[in-house]
């Protein structure tokens, strides 16, 4: 399905903005749906709204490939895919219909199926970006395998707009699983980690494993003929509205998130022991992503992370101006700054959004 052509006017305007910003050395703040300002540090600079730059550029359902303008919302994209019975495997949050494809790639947030189905980063095949020299460039492409040149497409994942303005994204999509089933059982957090990781060792079509408020939830997705038998082998009750639970978890709509003034996120090896008492924790991704609410001392939490070889993000409750993503070694900072310089020599794109030093 060929869609809208390149929006020449919109791109020309964006290029002008970047040119002017570079000349004046005035930072730009790139905004898609403005749905993820809670993540990272405060936005600074003159706002550049890219949300109007939306629409499907090309969709080839039989190739399992879609190209959209970066301002297209995740909700719109889902609707287009649903007509062909396809989905985004990584389940990026929609955040009330506001989240855009560009913003989702820039932040690389994924739903609960992340350990099995990958993140949006795993499904991006190509991008078009505007770099700091006001050039509109294309990297990657529309095919599954492409190793020509450095992977500038995936480099954008997690960059939060600091390495350019994403204008177009080509994604691999997948057939919608025929059915999904969620099995739920009451259990302690520490024990749930052991069981989740044990289940994951088998060839089971998993699409979620989490612990929340005293219960472990395991989701299976695939052909109906397979899922029934697989679910029967997992101890627990079938949750009648399973999809609703996973959606509320992915969209951060559970009461756990709503009530939290302070929110931290651990990313670490899934088998690492549970740290503390169960209260205030939510464990997702079979143990690899763990949220904790309530006021905690950063040093204590960082102590946990150091032992576990993981990362700690402060998502809510940070002191104004503080860094919220993990501290990095001098060598890492140097490399990242070198990269930043290569793509954004004057430093106009989202300065300070990721780190105070970048």
């Amino acid at each position, binding site marked *: 399905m060929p869609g809208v052509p390149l929006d020449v006017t919109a791109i020309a305007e964006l290029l002008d903005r970047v040119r002017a910003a570079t000349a004046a050395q005035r930072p730009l703040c790139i905004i898609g749906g403005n749905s993820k300002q809670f993540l990272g540090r405060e936005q600074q600079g003159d706002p550049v709204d890219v949300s109007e730059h939306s629409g499907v550029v090309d969709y080839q359902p039989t190739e399992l490939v879609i190209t959209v303008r970066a301002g297209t919302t995740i909700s719109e994209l889902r609707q287009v895919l649903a007509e062909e019975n396809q989905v985004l495997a990584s389940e990026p949050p929609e955040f009330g219909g506001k989240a855009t494809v560009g913003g989702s790639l820039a932040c690389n947030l994924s739903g609960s199926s992340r350990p099995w189905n990958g*993140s949006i980063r795993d499904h991006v095949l190509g991008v078009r970006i505007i*770099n700091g020299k006001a050039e509109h460039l294309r990297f990657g492409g529309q095919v599954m*395998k492409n190793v020509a040149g450095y*992977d500038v497409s995936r480099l954008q994942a997690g960059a939060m707009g600091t390495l350019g303005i994403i204008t177009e994204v080509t994604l691999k999509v997948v057939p919608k699983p025929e059915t999904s089933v969620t099995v739920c059982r009451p259990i302690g957090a520490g024990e749930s980690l052991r069981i989740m990781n044990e289940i994951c060792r088998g*060839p089971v079509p998993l699409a979620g494993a989490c612990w929340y408020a005293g219960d472990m939830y395991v989701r299976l997705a695939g052909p109906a003929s397979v899922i029934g038998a697989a679910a029967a082998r997992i101890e627990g009750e079938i949750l009648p509205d399973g999809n609703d639970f996973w959606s509320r978890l992915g969209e951060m709509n559970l009461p756990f998130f709503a009530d939290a003034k302070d929110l931290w996120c651990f990313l670490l090896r899934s088998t690492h022991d549970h740290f503390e008492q169960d209260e205030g924790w939510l464990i997702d991704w079979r143990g690899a992503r763990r949220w904790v609410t309530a006021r905690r001392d950063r040093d204590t939490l960082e102590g946990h992370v150091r032992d576990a070889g993981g990362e700690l993000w402060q998502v809510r409750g940070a002191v104004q101006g503080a860094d919220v993503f993990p501290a990095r070694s001098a060598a890492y900072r140097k490399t990242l700054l070198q990269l930043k310089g290569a793509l954004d020599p004057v430093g106009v794109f989202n300065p300070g959004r990721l780190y105070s030093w970048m």
Partner: protein
Amino acid sequence: MKTAEISNIADTAALAERLREFIGERYVVSATESKRPFECDGLSVYKQMPGLVVLPSSTEQVQKTLRLCSQHRIPVVVRGAGTGLSGGALPHRDGVLLSLTRLSRILEIDPDAGLARVQPGVTNLAISEACAPHGLFYAPDPSSQIACSIGGNVAENAGGVHCLKYGLTVHNVVQLTVVTIDGEIITVGCEGLAGAGPDMLALMIGSEGMLGVVTEVTVKLTPVPSHCQVILASFNQLEHAGDAVSAVIAEGIIPAGFEMMDSHAIQAAEDFVGAGYDTNAAALLLCELDGTEEEVRHCIEQVTAVFRQHNARSIRVSQNEAERLLFWKGRKSAFPAVGRISPDYYCMDGTIPRRMLSRVLSDISRLSKDYGLRVANVFHAGDGNLHPLILFDESQPGELQKAEAFGAEILRICVDAGGCITGEHGVGVEKLEQMLDQFSDAELAQLNAIKDALDPDALLNPGKGVPTLKRCQEYRST
């Protein structure tokens, strides 16, 4: 390209002496005969004797070597097992060839987390073998998997038969330890699957040893599926087989592997290993399905139906593990088999959208007549990754050049069809010129800017991967 300051024999000797202080006498090789095994990789039409061959055994030794080379501006070419097919490990005359084969330990297997931490010199297959007792395997399986190293897989973002379902190297590596050209260590990626900040892990994977030296790799392990069967189908026309591939994927089925061979390849493979292939067919498809028993049975019915609709001549389903392996044996030995029917062959690696398979295969067959060179096609049909093998005889004057020109034309066809010049073999020295078919000058300048930023003196694998601006101008003007 910038040249290194140390470029004569006396300096190489001095460098060797310094390196031997911390690497040991035996592992800094300067004698010509001992260096000879390193003069080329799997693409042996390119050969170059390195200045020195250095074989470190630890990350610290790699760091010290890079510091020394960086200080004296000596080029460093990193080499894994040397099975690469684009000349990516072609040595530099005045440089160090840094072989990582001694970094060959499996450091840790965590079966519960589904992770293994290994050194770069471990072979691809050794990881799966070590994990087999836990019911796990490492999914990417390039055809050189017995010999190729995981470090080389990372450098090339290697694929293989199973990447259609299980992804490429970039989808199966979660963390890397990288030594920068200054000898500093950085860790990229995160065992928690989603580290903050730009994805430098993805940047390093497939960067062909031009941005840093990988000394440790943490890979994701996959549970071995409980059931696995392969369908072997033959067709009277290449086009029918090509369309059948698209039709299967369009049904929503993701086979574990989906391979295609044309008549030259079928004949060569059958003569070589006797896998029972239909030698009267124009094309053969191998479609592997894995999962639970119910899942596999269900998919076999669907795929078989699609193959029938697309006029399959014969359809066979493997009935046991021995038969499954036999069906695969022909495909897996196709390259050496083709090697028996021609003195030399040149393996291409373009990728195209699946729906273009029939059209591109017809174009290749037309070009084959124009050039007067035979082509055998053996490839990963499921993800549109073509491996046309151009058959030629290097001893005939001009035939290599003719094969190269033919190959370049095939890659242009791939780009025009919406694809790319390399799906898994990398650019290396081989496809520098074809990079201009795929990228604009501004895009190449951006790629070069990334290289300059991380390796300002262009010491890491210089002259590979991305053509310099000067070379771009030369190519575009010819």
